[in-house]
């Protein structure tokens, strides 16, 4: 039995693992892929911390900006903690060796870390490493995990959490390589499995694997989820491939133009406002382009080398001389596993959740650019500490094999399941359905229709078996399980969106265009009623 089982090996999981290990705990990190392949690698623009290296800045301003962007439904204490931790976390990353971009200001330590402006920020606050901020933080965290001798178990797909009398006892996994269902016993569990943006398949900047597996497992184990309706659309993804063009492009002075060559929105407004403005242009029959030509090749290659390459490769345009066609797509899921102020899952003792899978109530209705990398590191450390504290007093009797046997039977059943409907086609359908009807601008009629469609898909799931009958390395099976989780989470998103008859942050509903604090300045929390099952 390990002290701490960390599920998910992105930035949040590795920060938690490193911290717990430094506290003296035995730690095992389990992930469905390899640690350095996580969504964190895709975070480009930067990581907020009020260092004030470029211009005057204060933690209080960072707190105020975050609260403003959250539109009244964040937990201000959690926001305060995260923002106050910012400079310390940069210091921690500096000591681990993160290669931040630097200023020529003659300073040492974190005082020379370069900072840039991101949307909704009142100062140049985002620390960055060119446009590879997430990648470079993630890889440095990984190097340090190797240094500390932390154990990793790769290619293990989370099936279910094991609980006993409301307390975590471990989790079951499908070993993708062998095809075996295994049980891992642990005193504390940290879930850091990422968000569920892949629900919007084909219309998301997210990797294929961002299917919300941890959130679905928490729901099944009796834990709660909240704020599931708040999904951030990133204004600038490439039109044809949905690949992300970092907000830094606008932060550095890029314009948004419509087909008539007109600017139509203040580009450094928060993402929800810019995304909606673009959507309105689409409705008016316009196309929208990102214009960074005036920044010049030298600056572009210096600040946004990755984007320039992606535009050339996937869109066939050269941003140095041409306009880049863009569209807003699903980017970040603010809601997720409902946690308390020590990041413990509401409903499961000893189980902590951190990062995009978790709803620590700091992003509220809309996340500020640069706050997600801060959250995964600051709260990743916090989750590691708290999981360690729980582990010190937790009982070390392992759970029985009930869940293991159940899951073995479930996997066997999938192999023999009817396969008359191709779930890959359904996955595409679900993505388009969500983009069109649970997207940037919502309407109750469309949401009701989407819910109906999703329920039809859930019913049809028993006919969507797997064609690949191999027991080992069965990626077909994994993708089926991921899709099942997406279908489990889909109704929670739609039902919450239907329930919220107002517009707030990323959730915008026609017919209810204003914020209605009296009725809706609150979180919509969902939990399965176990007695009713």
């Amino acid at each position, binding site marked *: 039995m390990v002290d701490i089982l960390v599920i998910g090996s992105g930035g949040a999981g590795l920060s938690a693992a490193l911290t717990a290990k430094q506290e003296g705990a035995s730690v095992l990190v389990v992930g469905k*892929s390899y640690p350095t392949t996580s969504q964190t690698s895709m975070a480009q623009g930067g990581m907020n911390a009020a260092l004030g290296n470029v211009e005057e800045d204060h933690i209080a301003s960072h707190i105020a900006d975050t609260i403003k962007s959250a539109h009244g439904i964040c937990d201000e204490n959690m926001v305060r903690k995260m923002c106050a931790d910012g400079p310390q976390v940069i210091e921690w990353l500096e000591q681990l060796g993160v*290669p931040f971009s630097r200023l020529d200001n003659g300073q040492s330590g974190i005082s020379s870390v370069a900072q840039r402006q991101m949307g909704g920020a009142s100062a140049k606050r985002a620390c960055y490493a060119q446009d590879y901020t997430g990648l470079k933080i993630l890889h440095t965290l990984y190097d340090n995990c190797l240094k500390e001798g932390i154990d990793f178990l790769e290619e293990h797909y989370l099936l279910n959490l094991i609980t006993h009398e409301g307390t975590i006892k471990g989790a079951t996994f499908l070993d993708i390589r062998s095809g075996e269902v295994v049980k891992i016993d642990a005193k504390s569990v940290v879930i850091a499995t990422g968000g569920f943006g892949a629900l919007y398949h084909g219309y998301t900047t997210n990797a294929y694997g961002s299917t919300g597996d941890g959130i679905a497992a928490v729901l099944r184990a009796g834990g709660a989820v909240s704020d599931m309706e708040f999904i951030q659309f990133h204004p600038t993804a490439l039109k044809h491939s949905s690949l992300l063009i970092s907000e830094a492009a606008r932060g550095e002075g890029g314009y948004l133009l419509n087909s008539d060559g007109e600017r139509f929105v203040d580009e450094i407004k928060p993402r929800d406002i810019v995304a909606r403005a673009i959507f309105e242009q689409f409705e008016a029959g316009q196309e929208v382009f990102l214009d960074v030509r005036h920044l010049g090749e030298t600056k572009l290659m210096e600040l946004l080398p990755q984007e320039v390459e992606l535009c050339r490769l996937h869109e066939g345009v050269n941003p140095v001389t041409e306009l880049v066609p863009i569209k807003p797509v699903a980017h970040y899921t603010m809601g997720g596993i409902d946690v308390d102020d020590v990041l413990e899952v509401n409903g499961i003792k000893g189980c902590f959740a951190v990062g995009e899978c978790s709803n620590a109530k700091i992003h509220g209705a809309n996340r500020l650019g640069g706050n997600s990398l801060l959250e995964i590191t600051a709260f990743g450390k916090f989750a590691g500490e708290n999981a360690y504290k729980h582990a010190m007093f937790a009982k070390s009797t392992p759970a029985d094999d009930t869940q293991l046997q159940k899951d073995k039977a479930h996997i066997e059943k999938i192999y023999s399941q009817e396969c008359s409907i191709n779930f890959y086609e359904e996955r595409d359908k679900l993505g388009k359905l969500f983009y069109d009807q649970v997207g940037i601008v919502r309407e109750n009629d469309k949401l009701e229709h989407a819910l109906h469609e999703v329920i039809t898909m859930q019913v049809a799931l028993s006919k969507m078996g797997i064609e690949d009958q191999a027991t080992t390395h069965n990626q077909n099976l994994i993708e089926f399980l991921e899709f099942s989780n997406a279908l489990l989470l889909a109704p929670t998103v739609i039902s919450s969106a239907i329930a919220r008859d107002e517009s707030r942050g990323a959730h915008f509903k026609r017919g209810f265009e204003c914020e209605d604090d009296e009725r809706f300045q609150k979180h919509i929390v969902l939990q399965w009623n176990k007695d009713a099952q």
Partner: protein
Amino acid sequence: MKIKILRSQTNTHQEYTLPDGETTLLKALTHIKATQDATLTFSAGCRASVCGTCAVRVNGREKLSCAYKVQDGDIIEPLQYHPVLRDLKVDKQPAKKTLSTSTAWLHSFQEAAQNHADEKMSERQTDCILCDSCYSACPVLAVNPDFIGPFALTRAYRYSVDKREENVKGIIDNIQSNGVWDCTLCGECTAVCPKGIDPKMDITMLRSTSVQQGYEDPSFSQMSFGTPDFGGGGFGF
């Protein structure tokens, strides 16, 4: 358009037909899996050339499948020097072990003044996405499976030039055996890196630092300077 993919179970190249039109290899693989053959197995993640998951060999050359545009007649195979788990999916564990062996991390932190030029010292090296392309292209691994290989050495170099590292020798000590001197400087790694990193140059630089730290080229020390030797292996000429 037709492409051939090496299938592990039969060890033969299977031909697939794709709809006409420009597409990335990753999209083509996804299309095949979704509509023609669910058993075709490969790895993929971000679609944006940054997670390092989807590297394969196309016509004998390492490519990220998300960044390669498929052409008629392409032959797709898994990376070399990694155990093939199934079809295009390989075990990256052995290659990753080299990161631990080379102790590519900050050994001893010291606070340092850093500027834009310092950032540039390792900017390119820290772009590495651990896709393992360079490892697959390295001919040394064909004869010495214990060679630390290009990406781990690039990473060791990254930390060795970091002003925050107080103990550069600590890193250098751990890349002497099966490390910097085993490279043949053929440059295959550099040629295939999708991020434009030049491991060959990094290894050259590490050799120079090694010499500064008191090491010498082991093959150099075996050379004889006492009598003229023009080779020929004893056959004389």
